[in-house]
């Protein structure tokens, strides 16, 4: 039986000067930890959350599984206040990959040069081809189930490792509606195994059982979360993972280099000495820690350009039994709207069918439709006949969407972050386009009672990557301009949001950052 990495990985002492401390064990931290350990580096990961044993610990119950979310309070401001918690945050060894959907389409080459293409947004400091080998590597390690050929983007050099997962009810309905409108669809690439799968130093992982609970934790190890992929690789190669260890600051020497990380474990502050730091806390905790420490912010860009994908959903009720709790949630995809013709906005979006658990659905019905009383109970008795589609769309970076430290303290005594988020015209137009199209798709598929739920998904930006030290926090290698031995690896460094779900890119970028760091070392520059 595959086990998640637990507390028995202790290898280093606080008095050791380890080669690197990696803060965070999610999509940004885990691949780096594995890469550096494999290269023979002495590495320690600090993870704020606990180490889980999913086969024993994970109940198929939304409320019980809320322990996987980052539940320290964040303050949501602006005209489109972001819902955090279960929507887009995670904690525990494996980070938010513990409850990511596992939907892993690649971004397309034009996503990386949005500004060149449209005159708005930002370009990435490198092209798609830089990440392509890393996409391939991540897809292989995770074990992605997907179609061959994949209908959109550049031809794949390597097919997906596994056949697509079976389509659930919502996926079949979206297929029907899109076909009626002449839109292409495909089984989506999902980082969940359609058959048992072997990787060296990881071992065999079992096939997905269609439990449908990806967003609240996979209990069988079929989903390619970090705890069953890159973290076992890292531990096998000699890395240490310290769970329940919350990083609170750094000690910096007179030359501006970090010489250790302060963190809280069991209520006591500890200090791990190290030569390098890889900060991988995600687009909220990473800038928060930098602002708390007063580090890496000579550009004034830490916390700026906060982005969230447009994730508007359209729901409908169908004659057929859908049973939204079964099967891989994101079964179907269409990228025909990657760059819609004659659109009045920059960028584009993909379409995704949705599986959903009852408490999440009910909460959205309450917030989105304001139903209560008998009308609410009546609506909810139709849960088994509800199906949804969502867009996953571009969000432009704006200086006026930002994270700051508030004067309110959390349970740890640290300032709560306040995140300001307001949609621009581009986002409004993109959402309107997507909503109109999804309503058409659902009408064509035979839906009644069609309604839209505006929402955002994922947190991106806040420590942007670029080539100008005056306008970016990290360079194209992920290295902080102001602190020579600090790297950032997570969704915070994305210069633009990309019209694809971020986890795959975070992991690919992490491997690239690790390789760039190792190459510097080989040149004697670390």
């Amino acid at each position, binding site marked *: 039986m595959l086990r998640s990495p637990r507390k028995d990985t202790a290898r280093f002492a606080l008095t050791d000067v380890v080669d690197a401390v990696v803060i965070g064990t999610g999509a940004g931290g885990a691949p780096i930890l594995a890469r550096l350990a494999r290269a023979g580096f002495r590495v320690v990961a600090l993870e704020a959350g606990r180490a889980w044993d999913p086969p024993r610990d994970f109940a198929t119950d939304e409320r019980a599984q809320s322990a996987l979310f980052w539940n320290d309070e964040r303050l949501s401001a602006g005209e489109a206040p972001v819902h955090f918690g279960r929507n887009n945050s995670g904690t525990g060894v494996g980070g938010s990959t513990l409850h990511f959907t596992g939907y892993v389409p690649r971004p397309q080459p034009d996503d990386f040069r949005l500004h060149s293409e449209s005159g708005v947004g930002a370009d990435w400091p490198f092209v798609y081809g830089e990440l392509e080998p890393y996409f391939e590597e991540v897809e292989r390690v995770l074990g992605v189930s997907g179609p061959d050929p994949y209908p959109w983007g550049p031809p794949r050099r390597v097919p997906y490792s596994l056949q697509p997962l079976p389509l659930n009810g919502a996926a079949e309905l979206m297929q029907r509606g899109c076909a009626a409108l002449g839109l292409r669809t495909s089984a989506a690439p999902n980082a969940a195994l359609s058959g048992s799968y072997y990787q060296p130093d990881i071992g065999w992982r079992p096939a997905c*059982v269609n439990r449908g609970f990806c967003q609240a934790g996979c209990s069988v190890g079929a989903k390619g979360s970090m705890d069953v992929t890159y973290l076992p690789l890292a531990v096998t190669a000699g890395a240490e993972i310290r769970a329940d260890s919350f990083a609170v600051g750094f000690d910096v020497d007179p030359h501006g280099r970090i010489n250790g990380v302060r963190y809280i474990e069991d209520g006591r502050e500890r200090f791990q000495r190290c030569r390098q730091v890889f900060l991988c806390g995600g687009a909220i905790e990473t800038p928060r820690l930098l602002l708390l420490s007063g580090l890496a912010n000579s550009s004034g860009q830490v916390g700026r350009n906060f982005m969230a994908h447009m994730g508007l959903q359209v729901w409908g009720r169908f004659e057929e039994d859908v049973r939204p709790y079964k099967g891989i949630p994101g079964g179907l995809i269409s990228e025909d709207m990657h760059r819609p013709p004659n659109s009045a906005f920059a960028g584009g979006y993909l379409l995704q069918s949705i599986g959903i658990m009852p408490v999440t659905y009910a909460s959205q019905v309450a917030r989105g439709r304001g139903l209560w009383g008998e009308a609410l109970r009546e609506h909810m008795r139709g849960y088994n006949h509800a199906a949804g589609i969502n867009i996953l769309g571009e969000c432009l970076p704006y200086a006026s969407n930002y994270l700051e430290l508030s004067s309110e303290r959390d349970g740890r005594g640290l300032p709560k972050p306040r995140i300001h988020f307001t949609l621009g015209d581009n986002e409004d137009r993109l959402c309107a386009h997507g909503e109109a199209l999804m309503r058409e798709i659902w009408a064509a598929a035979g839906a009644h009672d069609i309604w839209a739920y505006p929402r955002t998904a994922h947190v991106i930006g806040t420590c942007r990557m670029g080539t100008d030290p005056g306008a970016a926090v990290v360079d194209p290698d992920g290295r902080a301009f102001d602190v020579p031995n600090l790297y950032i690896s997570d969704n915070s460094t994305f210069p633009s949001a990309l019209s694809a779900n971020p986890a795959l890119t975070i992991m690919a970028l992490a491997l690239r950052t690790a390789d760039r760091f190792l190459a510097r070392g080989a040149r004697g520059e670390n």
Partner: protein
Amino acid sequence: MSDRGTPTYPAGTMQALLTTDLVTPQTRRVLAQRLKSPPIDCPPVLDPTELATLRAVCARLIPQPDRAEPIDLAAAVHDRLARNEGNGWRYAAMPPDLEAYRLGLLGLDELAHRMGGAAFVDLEAQRQDAVLRAVQRGEVGKSWRALPVALFFEELLAELVECYYSHPLAQDEIGYVGYADAHGWQAVGLDKLASHEPRPLPPVEQG
């Protein structure tokens, strides 16, 4: 749906399934615990008047006339507030949760007096609904002291709904059996059902 109407599912599905090996031990443990009423073992953080108003509000937002013993949503909310637990975020325009509830319940009572001449708990159900509708529609001013009224209503409703549909009996009501997790699902397409997924009851003839 239009032909068959909204389905009604048989009661007792979960309690029957919980005793079988179709449910993993950890899921069974969580659900069995929730089937008991949540104990109020924390020192009270809402006073008796506030708690009574909250109970009356729960009875209108999620009425349960079909249950001899309604699922106790007010106790679940109180329990959470007493343990100072949150869900990871809050509208920056809102005060902290406990303060928001206190201000909101007080505001509801004041509005009940204005609209109906009595405390919220003493109004007839229809009058109570009128007060709640006015709050939801923002017809009662933008804020009560430091509390944005419309956001308070949204947060209150979302929390009650989440508490309610987390409860095993409410999950039975909507025909949800995702908790039968031990073996996953082989039948996942449209209209494909495993033998242990509940079927709707036949419609009751009217008149």
